[in-house]
């Protein structure tokens, strides 16, 4: 993307535009995506060595949200269903990990697949009734899931720690890494995030991914194509819950504390807002949404201490007005128009 600009700054100024154009042509969309991913990964790996621990923690949380949003994107962006209750799956993953660490002293890497599996099964169970519903009705049922979760967590005090929650030791960095705790947690989260993105990417490129897209774009046509609607809708729900559960598990590692009040209904709504603002159905949507969910509330707090919610809400409205396809769509538009300008030179 930025290649041609550097060429024009080079010594061979006379034929620079022609070379710039040739270079721009050689960067196909596929290659551009790989370049972007490589640059992003390089930046992500150097971040924890550049920033103060608090910022490192913030970017860790961006990735945690991104993994949850990845799951929500699968469901909403790719399969065309809606969930106002994804905070519940996030919470289930977080609590599953916390209980495993607290009660059974399991080694923490083990908690990730188990928490993900628990969320998957729960998503499957809740996805089954959801298959018969669509639109507003589905929204209402998933919202109900998010609402009844908090009282439920408070009720089973012996396991969940009730309103007090559970406090846990965070994963300690192994001595050989020489990393501080915040840096270690950051890299753990980065590894999970990369894994989650690879998994989701592979899933969507497969035959199953095509089936989900078909369901989203035209249910009736998908059905006459031989796509079993209930099966794929339930599966989309389960996978989506699995990613949210995995994110919840990493959340527990990073925060070292879970309590019912961390998973109120607002979390579910914020997640949905995050993926819509980030960009539904796009590759970078979950990451941009994660940045939005993490930083915008704290920026809003800086602007006006009294009404962070108001600023947050207003910003969502502004983004949706300026970029109806989300931040990812906006970024794509900006990239394309810059490229066109560079090519014309």
């Amino acid at each position, binding site marked *: 993307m930025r290649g041609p600009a550097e060429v024009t700054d080079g010594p061979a100024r006379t034929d620079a535009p022609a070379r710039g154009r040739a270079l721009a042509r050689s960067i196909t969309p596929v290659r551009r995506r790989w370049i972007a991913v490589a640059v992003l990964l390089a930046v992500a790996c150097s971040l924890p060595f550049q920033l103060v621990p608090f910022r490192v923690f913030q970017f860790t949380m961006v990735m945690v949200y991104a993994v949850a949003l990845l799951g929500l994107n699968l469901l909403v962006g790719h399969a065309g269903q809606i969930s106002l209750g994804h905070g519940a799956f996030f919470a289930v993953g977080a609590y599953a990990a916390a209980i495993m660490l607290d009660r059974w002293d399991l080694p923490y890497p083990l908690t990730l697949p188990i928490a993900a599996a628990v969320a998957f099964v729960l998503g499957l169970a809740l996805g089954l009734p959801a298959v018969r519903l669509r639109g507003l009705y589905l929204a209402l049922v998933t919202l109900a899931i998010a609402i009844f979760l908090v009282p439920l967590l408070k009720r089973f005090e012996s396991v969940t720690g009730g309103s007090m929650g559970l406090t846990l030791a965070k994963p300690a960095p192994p001595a050989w890494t020489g990393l501080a705790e915040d840096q270690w947690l950051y890299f753990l989260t980065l590894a999970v995030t990369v894994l989650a993105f690879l998994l989701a990417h592979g899933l969507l490129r497969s*035959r199953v991914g*095509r*089936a989900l*897209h*078909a369901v989203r*774009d*035209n249910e*009736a*046509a*998908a*059905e*006459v*194509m*031989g*796509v*079993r*609607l209930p099966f794929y809708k339930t599966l989309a729900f389960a996978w989506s819950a699995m990613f949210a559960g995995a994110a919840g598990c990493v959340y527990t590692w990073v925060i070292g504390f879970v309590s019912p009040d961390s998973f109120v209904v607002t979390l579910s709504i914020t997640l949905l807002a995050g993926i819509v603002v980030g960009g539904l159905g796009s590759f970078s949507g979950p990451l941009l949404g994660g940045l939005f969910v993490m930083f915008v509330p704290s920026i809003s707090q800086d602007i006006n201490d009294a009404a962070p919610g108001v600023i947050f809400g207003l910003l969502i409205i502004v983004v949706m007005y300026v970029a109806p396809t989300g931040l990812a769509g906006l970024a794509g538009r900006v990239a394309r128009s810059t490229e066109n300008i560079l090519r014309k030179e």
Partner: protein
Amino acid sequence: MSTDSFLTISDLSAGYGDARVLHGVNLSVGRGEICAILGPNGAGKTTLLRALSGAVWTRGSVRLDGAGLARRSPDAIARRGVAHVPEGRGTFMPLTVEENLRLGAFTRRGRGEVEADLDRIHGYFPVLKTRLRQVAGSLSGGEQQMLAIGRALMSRPRLLLLDEPSLGLAPLVTRELFRIVRTINEQERTTVVVVEQNAHLALDIAQQAHVLESGRIVLSGSADEIRADEQVAQSYLGYRV
């Protein structure tokens, strides 16, 4: 009618919710034949095709090569070899042409075969090959109809249901499309049921034809017999014999 009946519909009623659209339709289509369904708007032509592919409620019996299809779900019927090209084409607009075609082969396993079938479809519709990476929404109406038929062929159907393939297309494009449908029918021995407003074109490629009015078959016969019928000529062909 045909002695070797491939598709047999007996006393078929169908509709939406409380509204019954088809009232006891009987017809049969021979193996490898093209059967045209003619009739005015609202006669139930589209509903008949939907009943065959399981998209509406039905009563009565539908048998394909002896096996019952009635009251099965659309995806189960699709797996039994019925490919429905719906009215309005049912294109997955945001997906690429290639993704649309591959979705057509959804019921089938075996990668090698699917690749071979993609080549086969490109043989019928060369224009699709040049558009593989384009999103389907950017195709012209005629190209989208070709895509819809190509996608249906990807499932290697035993029975192909075409709903108004000429809708919204230029006459030349329509003619080309019907020529290809006939080629497909001849080369692959695919049985075809085509619903069409343009009775001339439909009768040109069909062996059998049925006229549907108010949810009932009012006239059946060979394409030539139907063409020669004075009533049909007046109502659907636009001239007197």
